[in-house]
């Protein structure tokens, strides 16, 4: 019996590269199919990288009234749609909670960059006094969270967290903390990200993205031949509840979180301070009141970056020694930043429900000296606790424990 509280995932919704809704997403995982494809939204001809996890064919009108769609940017549309799917998945009873008892925590790494670009283009073409106010209203990072609150009348806290690759996990951590504190009874934890030409080109320019070299451009988390990230986009939402109606939930429970920062990291890259990652992972285990031996799988942050993957591999070996549980790297399915990290988290929730762990797409062979038991084929596996990692460029670290039992 644990003395601390746990927070149930009652529903999941998502707009992912290659899948809309949790059923399609499960199918994608089971089939080991990647949503990463050639970029066709903008011209990449002058760049080294040409692939990304892109959202295609998303129809906002399936989820949002046309009159409202016009007032939302892409991020807001996808965040609201994912939230609606999560609420449907959770089969929320109307009026179970007062509007003030439901909060919203949203994570986004870059926020509405494209909306800002669109505004500034109007600023240049029309003049600073004639740019469209509607674009300005949507240029703030918390616009998607605001639309969620308005659409579903959630009047509890409404905060937007932006911590690079860890944004969605940080938002989830905050949402869970408020539920166990009693500030709200339930919360939406949402992550959303949009791929745009400027962000893509800047990441390409600084050499952060995979490109064609000795091997074809691809997301290769933990692989010895990895050469950078592939980026992704999309949205995912969790409906979280401190008191699930039937006393249990199929997706599992958030049982603990840990945070730290690698003090060796520069402002825009990963460092070498594995002890900081160990500190965050250990803090999450302590928070969940479980031991190392009770961790059945690790959802690694690995994204194919040279420094980030090396840092995480070192930390896992430092913490688990020769008993590292199966490691799952998910970014090969949808890229880094997909749902601001929330899609990474969804794969863990789906795995917990299925008691099944997916293949780590893109991984073939570990770097010498940093060998890990990276899972290479989808297979059934009993899962009591999953350790979910999120390591950000700049040094931020957020870890979570997803548990099967309440």
């Amino acid at each position, binding site marked *: 019996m644990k003395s601390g509280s746990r927070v149930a995932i009652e529903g999941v919704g998502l707009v992912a590269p290659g899948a809309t809704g949790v059923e399609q997403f499960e199918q994608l995982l089971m089939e080991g199919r990647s949503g990463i494809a050639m970029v066709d939204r903008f011209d990449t001809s002058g760049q080294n990288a040409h692939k990304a996890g892109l959202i295609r064919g998303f129809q906002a009108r399936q989820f949002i009234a046309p009159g409202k769609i016009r007032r939302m940017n892409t991020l807001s549309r996808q965040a609201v749609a994912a939230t609606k799917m999560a609420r449907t998945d959770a089969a929320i009873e109307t009026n179970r909670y007062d509007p003030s008892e439901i*909060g919203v925590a949203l994570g986004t790494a870059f926020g509405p960059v494209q909306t800002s670009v669109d505004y500034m283009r109007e600023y240049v073409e029309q*003049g600073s006094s004639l740019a469209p*106010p509607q674009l300005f*209203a949507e240029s703030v990072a*918390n616009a998607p969270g605001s639309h969620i*609150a308005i659409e579903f009348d959630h009047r*509890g806290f409404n905060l937007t967290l932006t911590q690079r690759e860890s944004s969605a996990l940080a938002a989830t951590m905050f949402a869970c903390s408020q539920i166990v504190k009693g500030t709200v009874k339930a919360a939406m934890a949402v992550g959303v990200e949009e791929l745009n030409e400027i962000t893509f080109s800047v990441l390409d320019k600084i050499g952060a993205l995979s490109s064609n070299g000795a091997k074809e451009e691809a997301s290769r988390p933990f692989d010895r031949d990895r050469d950078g990230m592939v980026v992704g986009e999309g949205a995912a939402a969790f409906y979280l509840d401190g008191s699930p109606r039937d006393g249990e939930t199929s997706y599992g429970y958030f049982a603990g979180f840990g945070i730290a920062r690698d003090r060796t990291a520069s*402002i825009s890259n990963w460092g070498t301070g594995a002890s900081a990652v160990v500190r965050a992972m250990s803090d999450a285990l302590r928070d969940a009141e479980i031991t190392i031996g009770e961790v059945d799988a690790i959802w690694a942050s690995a994204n194919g970056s040279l420094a980030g993957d090396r840092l995480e591999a070192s930390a896992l070996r430092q913490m688990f020694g020769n008993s590292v549980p199966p490691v799952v790297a998910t970014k090969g399915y949808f890229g880094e930043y997909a749902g601001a990290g929330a899609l990474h988290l969804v794969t863990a929730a789906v795995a917990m429900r299925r008691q099944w762990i997916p293949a780590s797409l893109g991984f073939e062979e570990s770097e010498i000296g940093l060998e890990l038991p990276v899972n290479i084929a989808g297979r059934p596996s009993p899962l009591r606790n999953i350790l979910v990692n999120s390591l950000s460029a700049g040094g931020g670290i957020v870890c979570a424990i997803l548990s099967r039992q309440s």
Partner: protein
Amino acid sequence: MRKPDTNIRVAVTGIGIICSIGSNADEVWTAIEQARAGIGPLTAFGDETFTTDIAAEVPADFASDLFARASEMKRLSRTDLLAIKAAQEAVTQADLDANTLILRERTVVCTGTSTGGLLEGESYFFERLVRGAGKTSASRVLQQPTSGPSDAVARTLGLGGGVLSNATACASGGAAIGMAADLLRSGHVDSALAGGSDALCRLTYSGFNVLGAVDPAACAPFSADRKGITLGEGAAYVVLERWDDAVARGARILAELGGYGASCDAHHPTAPAEDGRGASAAMMGALLDSGSTGSDIDYINAHGTGTLLNDSAETRAIVTTLGSEVPASSTKSFFGHTLGAAGGLEAVITVLALQHQMAPPTLRLQTAAQDCALDYIPLTPRPMVIRQALSNTFGFGGSNVSLLFRAS
């Protein structure tokens, strides 16, 4: 999961601030005492044409004495540099290294910012239009994300307890401080550097103008002839520790952060709910979180932007929550609306008010509006007993945060 324990008291042991009326807490408080505003002609991008042309700017050379790594200084945004400047002052005052009970390794940085490195992003955008993407350096735009200030502060000060950034529009700074308090109360960290930072940029200056939300003259919150905000820039941080830890290491406690409340209007993307329901819920939340009652509050540092809608809705919310007797003032009349930094700046001002037992005034308030019927402490500061005070910050999207501070 450890829950944030509201029985754990949170001490403020350091403050740092930079804005248009001063580059440290002493300078800022002197300006408050002298009722001296820092609002003047816009110079940051004076070659542009806007419908208004004033702002509350920080002098351009403010970063000359920063000790950030020289090579990285060139890549940092103006918002990062403002954040580092204020954070250094706060950490120096808290003297975090004076006792090994508080480890920099266990200190989290929580920063609220609305624009992050947008100013530099704009320059990158303009240069790309002229030179093309291939010939435009990307180094300055790397700090565009709103996570930049937290990362830059943590990197500069060698802090390892985590970094969490909040981009909840104008409620960001207050939210960051509230988040930090809960991380202390749950035991995830041992100390926190929390606040906000935002630099002026073209997008927000233009954006508030096209919304018709900017006063062509210096803003006059709560007044009958108020016409909108004055945009400003700045940064401010507080150092937070668990009260018992601060006492044990002999730290000087400046004030207590009693708690905070957060809510959402769920009403409109930019306009507040006219009945002030969300603002009221945030203030009620702060009272509950702190174990205080409405009668404990002696002063409110209001959000008080100077817009028609905010000031009337906030007044209504204050009356609903606390009655019509409690004095409230808007220090945005001194240093403008600093957007994501506002919650940080105004938290520091509130701590200073508690320390000095003096309420800052609302400048330029000659005649209060009919829908603003409170004591707004017009024109001159007021010595008074302040045991507990609220600091309100409300943002686009109807997000509201209220912080409650107590005298130490």
